[in-house]
């Protein structure tokens, strides 16, 4: 079972827009091109690889989980933590011999802690072409608000 917790806005992660984060992405991209090994964590046995992003109204979590039945996916939301779990099993093939087995297989579970609490009922989950997309509307308190500065 692969269990790993992500905390995108926690102390261990750089602010998304920071120059350092951008540099790290560029470095990953360079290393990947030179070595031919993906820098996306898939080679390190982390499954599924996830991207987390936000816009003013929503958080988005996208996970690459190709070849699974939507009914085999569990998404749960508890306060600030969103957990995606399931199992990816190759269909049982009768009487075959394997030459290569590179695709990740088995049970997985990953959690993401976001900076706000969510109402699970309002989370939208879609599974298209092997990508799970979770759309989480930000609670009012977490939305950016313009404050008017008054001069006396």
């Amino acid at each position, binding site marked *: 079972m692969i269990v790993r917790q992500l905390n995108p806005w926690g102390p261990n992660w750089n602010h998304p827009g920071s120059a350092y984060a951008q540099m790290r992405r560029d470095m990953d991209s360079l290393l990947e091109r030179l070595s031919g090994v993906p820098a996306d964590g*898939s080679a390190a046995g982390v499954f599924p690889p996830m991207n*987390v992003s936000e816009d003013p109204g929503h958080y988005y979590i996208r996970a690459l*989980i*190709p070849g699974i039945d939507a009914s085999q996916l569990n998404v749960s939301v508890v306060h600030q933590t969103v957990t995606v779990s399931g199992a990816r099993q190759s269909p049982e093939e009768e009487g075959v011999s394997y030459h290569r087995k590179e*695709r990740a297989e088995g049970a997985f579970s990953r959690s993401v802690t976001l900076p706000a609490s969510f109402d699970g009922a309002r989370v939208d989950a879609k599974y298209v072409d092997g990508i799970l997309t979770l759309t989480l509307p930000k609670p009012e308190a977490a939305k950016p608000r313009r404050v008017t500065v008054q001069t006396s």
Partner: protein
Amino acid sequence: MATDKTQGLQTREARDLAATMEATRPGVLLTPPVDIFEDPNAITVLADMPGVNPERLKIDLHEGVLTITGHADASEGPNEVTGVQEYRAGTFQRSFTLSEAIDQNQIRATLKHGVLRLRLPKAEQAKPRQIEIRTD
């Protein structure tokens, strides 16, 4: 470099590809992980290509080299700011060398939930044959 020679199918490593091919479109070039298995009638290749739909998938057979190419577009909206990025959208590509043991006219491909399934039927002469032993 590890290459496995199976009967009729040989996987080209990403590094081989890089030598013969330059990226011609923006975005990263990704090597999809594959499962390859063989039964008496065919060799089957499964490749993970999340985000690729059938319209963006190309399967090319040229001089005995089967190349699969699929493009996945980034699904982020224009106003989104990324917090964690563990994968990037790009072009999946991988090549396989086929021998004459594959019936190249009968290759079938299906793409479902981001997994490509290629069935490469063996040519008649490559199938295992039971040889009857007679005793006089």
